[in-house]
């Protein structure tokens, strides 16, 4: 018998809000199945199960904000007798924080709910959100509700504008983003936006990283013309669904390098480094509303470039839709952060604890380069490896970079 609990999705997470059950009592579950969706500072995360068996009882209600470790469900192994009184057999469940009167993301509250957000005192704490339910931004408007464009709904929520007071100029009187501009700025709303929550989570993780990890950095600028030429040839004969971006090559090269230099791949926890034989390559994905997440491509050391590309596409789509899984958020063993095609030429990144290395890739730049004794224009990227001096030193970091470089020099072998 096992208790499915609220997992920690990062060292700085204290609580999460249960927003969806994907199983019901009696359902058979297997290790790795997604059982529930939890809203965290990093967005909605699908929570996986580590047990085999059958769901005996759901112990948490949708909308409940629960601390890490709080029981969510009871899972009984096949053949195991079901406990007669599970409530009595289990330890006291952790206290639940006050639930909102209307669970926000599940039951879309009509926009016409009688609330007076703007009159709430500015010092009201965040947690007791009872009293001003806010409709989720993606839910279709319930019948009879105001017609509001998604962007206007988000902006109104951020600015604390009461949509009932806004005159819409869109089709059928729908409220558009520009209609909000005419509104005077109301008093600040006490509830933090998801962007604010994510910024807090990033701030906590990065502050801890800088305070506890003795970072050191090695950089090298690498000619990627051969890799780009190889990709262009390959993509020319491929339909869009099978095309590969340079980012997938970089993740593949980093995964191979990480599998060969163990001091770059693993976790530093409880005062000791635990190297990992698998490479779960965290890929930093910038979120369009601000902030970023770094879900992992699991087992990247054994994947082809095509496999990694498909996995990255899937991660980006799910990151945009708020559908990442708990294992992807917590089991990364190294992170690759790339500035994409445009932007600065180099980035010195902060390691994501409990990992021990981060590969920062600047944007590709056309630069004069010496090839066979002659200066020629070449597209180059600058790789900056951030590494943890508790675990490794310059020699290992240099080996990692040399390995990455040799992989990129012969992309056909990747």
């Amino acid at each position: 018998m096992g208790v499915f609990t609220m997992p920690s999705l990062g060292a700085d997470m204290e609580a999460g809000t249960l927003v969806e059950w994907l199983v019901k009592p009696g359902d058979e579950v297997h290790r790795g199945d997604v059982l529930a969706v939890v809203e965290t500072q990093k967005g909605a995360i699908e929570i996986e199960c580590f047990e085999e068996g059958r769901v005996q009882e759901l112990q948490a209600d949708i909308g409940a904000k629960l601390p890490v470790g709080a029981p969510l469900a009871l899972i009984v192994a096949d053949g195991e007798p079901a406990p007669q009184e599970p409530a009595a057999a289990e330890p006291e469940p952790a206290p639940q924080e006050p639930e909102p009167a209307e669970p926000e993301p599940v039951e879309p509250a009509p926009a016409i709910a009688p609330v007076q957000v703007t009159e709430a005192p500015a010092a009201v704490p965040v947690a007791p959100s009872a009293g001003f339910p806010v409709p989720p931004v993606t839910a279709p408007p319930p019948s009879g509700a105001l017609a509001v464009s998604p962007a206007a709904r988000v902006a109104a929520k951020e600015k604390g504008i009461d949509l009932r007071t806004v005159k819409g100029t869109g089709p059928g009187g729908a409220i558009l983003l520009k209609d909000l501009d005419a509104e005077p700025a109301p008093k600040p709303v006490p509830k933090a936006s998801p962007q604010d929550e994510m910024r807090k989570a990033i701030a906590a993780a990065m502050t801890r990283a800088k305070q506890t990890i003795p970072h050191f950095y090695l950089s090298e600028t690498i000619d990627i013309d051969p890799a780009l030429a190889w990709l262009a040839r390959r993509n020319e004969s491929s339909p869009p669904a099978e095309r590969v971006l340079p980012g997938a090559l970089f993740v593949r090269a980093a995964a191979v390098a990480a599998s060969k230099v163990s001091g770059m791949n693993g976790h530093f926890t409880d005062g000791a480094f635990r190297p990992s034989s698998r490479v779960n390559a965290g890929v930093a994905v910038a979120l369009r509303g601000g902030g970023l997440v770094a879900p992992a491509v699991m087992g990247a050391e054994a994947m082809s470039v095509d496999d990694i590309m498909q996995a990255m596409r899937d991660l980006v789509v799910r990151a945009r839709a708020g559908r990442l899984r708990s294992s992807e958020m917590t089991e990364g063993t190294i992170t690759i952060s790339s500035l994409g095609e445009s932007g600065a030429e180099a980035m010195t990144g902060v390691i994501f604890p409990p990992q021990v290395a981060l590969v920062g890739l600047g944007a590709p730049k056309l630069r004069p380069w010496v090839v066979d004794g002659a200066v020629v224009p070449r597209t180059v990227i600058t790789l900056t490896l951030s590494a943890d001096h508790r675990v490794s030193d310059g020699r290992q970091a240099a080996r990692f970079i040399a390995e990455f470089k040799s992989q990129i020099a012969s992309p056909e072998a990747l």
Partner: protein
Amino acid sequence: MTEQDIRRAYIEELVAVAPDIDPDTVGETDHLQDDLGLDSMDVLNLVTALHERLGVDIPEADYPQIATAKRAVVYLAARIG
């Protein structure tokens, strides 16, 4: 397929890739990357969706031709026709 149909398909697939974009506010000359903030993976996902929906396989060299709604309608109309 009229130009209006093509424009609608383009905007619908764009919003599917970047759900936070309000389709009503996308201007004719808004650039996918410079104005709407798409990254290379988003652009590839849009190209893939347009391929599936319209049957037009847009080669990498032609990505600039679909960088705005205005250009995309002209380009896709020619490729469909």
